[in-house]
């Protein structure tokens, strides 16, 4: 959001969306099933957008996002179920502790590049999962039961904050520094950018929101178990981001909505479900290898439209 006019337009739009959904809920037009799907989508968007910052913007190939989701889920569950803290406190706590986890993972591993980084982050996520698996306080393999506190309002607020923070971060000198690392780390370094700092920062912010998503996740699905946070979960989040278009925030959001809806819709196709899902995945990638949106944002389309009308494109 470059200027405040756009920003307020965005806020207005968000509030309108919130109000409409809230109205639909109150009038019972939106039943529990759609609501649950909506909350699930919101959680997934938070995950996708937070990973987008790490992979899409900063260009660091992380395969361990589920690890931070797990940290957030477990910490928030401990906070509410064991320590009796209020849910909002648990959400913040989940984010903060996940940020710490992000720092612990990020500082040593962000020296690595490409697939080596991917393997290291994957390894860290597995370590996090195994730690929870072996702690009896959080139920080990059986997991912890968690009360249902996640409502549309909580999900919406968290989603809104995530998107605003990440957009604002991206569209500032800090975000530009991150993109320059993605584009050419050596040149970025040579331009006076502390690349390590920004990589770790992006990773920490990404982890924070993954932790927040974890809190919402834990308090929406009644139980969390280490199996929920395996390697495939990281892959699932990665798919959202890549399918949307690496580097495109709106792409990540659109892809997340699309895939979550498709996956939910396919639920009743039972055995055929994953077959259809994987075929869709393959086809989208084959025909849109840069993802649904490429690196474009949805707002670019409006701009382009305006531009071609104005006709002042040079060439």
């Amino acid at each position, binding site marked *: 959001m470059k200027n405040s006019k756009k920003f307020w337009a965005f806020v207005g739009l968000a509030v309108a969306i919130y109000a409409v959904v809230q109205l639909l809920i109150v009038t019972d037009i939106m039943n529990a099933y759609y609501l649950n799907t909506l909350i699930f989508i919101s959680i997934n968007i938070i995950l996708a957008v937070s990973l987008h910052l790490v992979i899409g913007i900063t260009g660091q190939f992380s395969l361990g996002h589920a690890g931070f989701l797990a940290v957030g889920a477990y910490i928030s569950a401990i906070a509410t179920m064991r320590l009796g803290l209020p849910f909002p406190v648990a959400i913040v706590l989940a984010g903060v502790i996940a940020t710490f986890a992000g720092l612990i993972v990020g500082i040593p591993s962000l020296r690595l590049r490409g*697939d080596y980084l991917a393997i290291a982050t994957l390894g860290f996520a597995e370590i996090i999962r195994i730690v929870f698996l072996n702690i009896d306080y959080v139920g080990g393999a059986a997991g912890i039961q968690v009360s249902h506190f996640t409502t549309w309002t909580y999900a919406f607020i968290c989603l809104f904050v995530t998107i605003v923070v990440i957009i604002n971060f991206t569209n500032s000198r800090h975000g530009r520094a991150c993109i320059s690392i993605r584009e050419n780390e050596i040149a970025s370094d040579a331009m006076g950018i502390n690349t390590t700092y920004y990589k770790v920062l992006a990773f920490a912010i990404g982890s924070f929101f993954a932790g927040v998503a974890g809190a919402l996740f834990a308090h929406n699905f009644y139980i969390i178990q280490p199996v929920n946070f395996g390697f495939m979960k990281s892959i699932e989040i990665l798919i959202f981001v890549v399918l949307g278009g690496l580097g495109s925030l709106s792409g990540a959001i659109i892809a997340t909505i699309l895939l979550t809806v498709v996956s939910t819709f396919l639920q009743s196709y039972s055995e055929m479900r994953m077959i259809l899902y994987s075929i869709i*995945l393959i086809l989208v990638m084959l025909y849109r290898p840069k993802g649904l949106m490429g690196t474009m944002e949805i707002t670019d389309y409006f701009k382009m439209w305006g531009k071609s009308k104005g006709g002042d494109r040079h060439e």
Partner: protein
Amino acid sequence: MNRMEWLQQLINGISLGSIYALIALGYTMVYGIIKLINFAHGEVFMIGAFIGFYAIAGWGLSFFPALLLSMAVCAVIGVVIERIAYKRLRNATRIAALITAIGVSLLIQNGVIYFRGAQPEVYPSVLQNKSFNFLGAQVSSQSILILLVAIVLMIILQFIVHKTKIGKAMRAVSYDSDAARLMGINVDNTISATFAIGSSLAGAAGVVFGIYYTKIDPLMGVIPGLKAFVAAVLGGIGIIPGAMVGGLFLGVVEAIVSALGFSLWRDAVAFVILILILIFKPSGIFGKNSREKV
């Protein structure tokens, strides 16, 4: 633990590690040549195991014909996967190809479940397994066989890639495919050959795995596939002896961690060691620590 037990555990680790190595060899080959993390490799391995199973249990073939059949079919499957799912993505980002590979992997897993169910299958025993004593530790003949197969395949692969014409073409393609075209190399065929070889190795590994562990199921490729990926990276991406060493290393680490009584933490410790190694050798054990030349 006494000396004998250490030895026993080392042997346990090596036999487990040679399975990882066997899968990792094909993995790293494809990985090294087209820089694609071929997630479907584990699934080709699984299909190989099933083909071997049907060949032995269904048609009564003996070990060698079944192995060859499985390798041949897997080679074809590998080429078909490449042509359909990856070829279009040659010039796309690597991460896009990775996602497609994940899609292919899910498709194969669930396709097999759809057609034959998720229940496991038990391999018929076609090879005698004898245990014998080695300095007080027990060694099974099959685990020696696996290690030998892995070593032989490694040598053959290394030979193919470094000494034969097609191998040189593969390497040329891996460094610069347009320049390779200018040498008259048919890039498409070379990549197909790479997939054929890599996938047939996966097929062989599947049959050997089936015979050694007897249980196969549609999801059997997931964990070994992941471990092979880890082994390949650990050894240094694309480096064939690296995959071998990476696989053995992983197996031995797992065995020793279990042996010391930390079986609960086995995978965690394995990953900690992996990360430590990468921190000190950021391009894997055998990788050259070359930074991009500026």
